[in-house]
């Protein structure tokens, strides 16, 4: 559904005749071209996984983190322009510590999502600012249980059971819809997310990738952390096995 917005796409403060702001849509394209990010909300927590496309063999594994902790209880996975993502993460961290400083309790995930969305939206309102070229998936665990939010470059934010952004999002969403999330624990969720990411990775177009995963769940004491190495290895093995099974058919 792409169209050329000649003339109406030069500034984020210009509407097109059919009511679209093209600059924001173009920002969305930057997100669509990045490695897939998949996140699901299981019954006891949130699991997030990122397909980190490796640009060069010289890069050290484990560097270029795409998932960042925003507070003890929440984390953010970024897709799109990495530098823009850094800015959003920094802002989210700041909002979270500020809230806790003022109100004495960790920021509710809903509130954090609203503040991040608000900030992203801000950058779509002025001609001297450009929109963020990244989408963000925010997973957290507060008094109301585990929650998953997604913020798009337009500043729109929704709460999800399962979300995916980036190259393989369509295929990923189809896979997520097959899962019974309300009955799944995060331990099982980690395996499923790994399978999905390995599944949507396009071997032909992009060569190597590194899988980065994090979770916030009862097992991690409601703290956001990287998925423990042994579980991550288990997930990668299961994902590779599932791929081979598919290829064998």
């Amino acid at each position: 559904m792409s169209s050329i917005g000649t003339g109406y796409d030069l500034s984020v403060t210009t509407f097109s005749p059919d009511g679209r702001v093209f600059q924001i849509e173009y920002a969305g394209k930057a997100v669509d071209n990045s490695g897939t990010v998949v996140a699901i909300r299981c019954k006891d927590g949130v699991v997030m996984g990122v397909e980190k496309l490796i640009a060069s063999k010289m890069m050290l594994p484990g560097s270029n983190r795409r998932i960042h902790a925003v507070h003890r209880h929440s984390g953010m996975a970024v897709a799109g322009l990495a530098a823009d993502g850094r800015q959003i993460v920094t802002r989210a961290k700041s909002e979270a510590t500020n809230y806790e400083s003022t109100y004495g309790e960790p920021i509710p995930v809903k509130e954090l999502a609203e503040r991040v969305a608000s900030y992203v939206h801000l950058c779509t309102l002025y001609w001297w600012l450009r929109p963020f070229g990244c989408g963000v998936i925010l997973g957290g665990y507060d008094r109301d249980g585990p929650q998953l939010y997604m913020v798009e470059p337009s500043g729109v934010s929704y709460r999800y059971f399962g979300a995916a952004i980036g190259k393989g999002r369509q295929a990923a969403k189809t896979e997520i819809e097959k899962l019974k999330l309300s009955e799944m624990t995060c331990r099982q969720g980690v395996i499923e997310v790994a399978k999905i990411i390995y599944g949507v990775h396009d071997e032909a177009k992009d060569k190597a990738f590194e899988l980065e995963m994090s979770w916030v769940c009862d097992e991690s004491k409601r703290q956001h952390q990287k998925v423990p190495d042994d579980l991550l290895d288990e997930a990668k093995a299961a994902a590779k096995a599932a791929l081979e099974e598919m290829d064998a058919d």
Partner: protein
Amino acid sequence: VTNSAPSMINLIGSESDSQRTLYPYVTGTSVVGIKYKDGILLAADMGGSYGSTLRYKTVERLKTVGKHSIIGASGEISDFQEIMRNLDELILYDNMWDDGNSLGPKEVHNYLTRMMYNRRNKFNPLWNSLVLGGVKNGQKYLGTVSMIGVHYEDNHVATGFGNHLARPLLRDEWHADMTFEEGVKLLEKCMRVLLYRDRSAVNKLQIAKITEEGVTISQPYALKTFWNFSAFQNPTAGAEGSW
């Protein structure tokens, strides 16, 4: 917390006085710390005095800082709470890197020194004397910082009255690689002397232990004291009518 611009730093003047700490209100008394075989032991009572009144009796003056350190504070309790806010934020940001590294006791001690010294230079001190102890990668660390930023490390440290009453005992009886039981016994001896002789001491204390495995802060308990000295029996014998 914004503070005075250089033009407002002024020792005399009631307007700028309201912007800085002049004297403490609710204070904690001594903290005593020693190194022992497996790590560090810290002891402090749970009293918060309001001048000469022993007003608050469940003040926790020993706190954990991250995975590797414990801090004990004497002096103004509200300033200690502010210090803890800063430290908690420091540790939070350190944890969020999620890179396998964490701030050790030496780093935290340095951070505290910077905080205290910079406030002192603005004539608006955090009115505390702090003890910082910890273990990281097998290395034991015990240090102290005063409200003017004086800092040093030693095998045993104390704040306030502890310097006068406990340190001499520790100089005589501390030795390297004490066991946990020996360490606690020595600390209790120091705390008992402080209880007898420091008017702001309260008979309810906690002992904190930190080793490579982690931190334990004990439940509050009281020391046994003895008051049946003959000199205390019938104290008005030589002066009838006095009390």
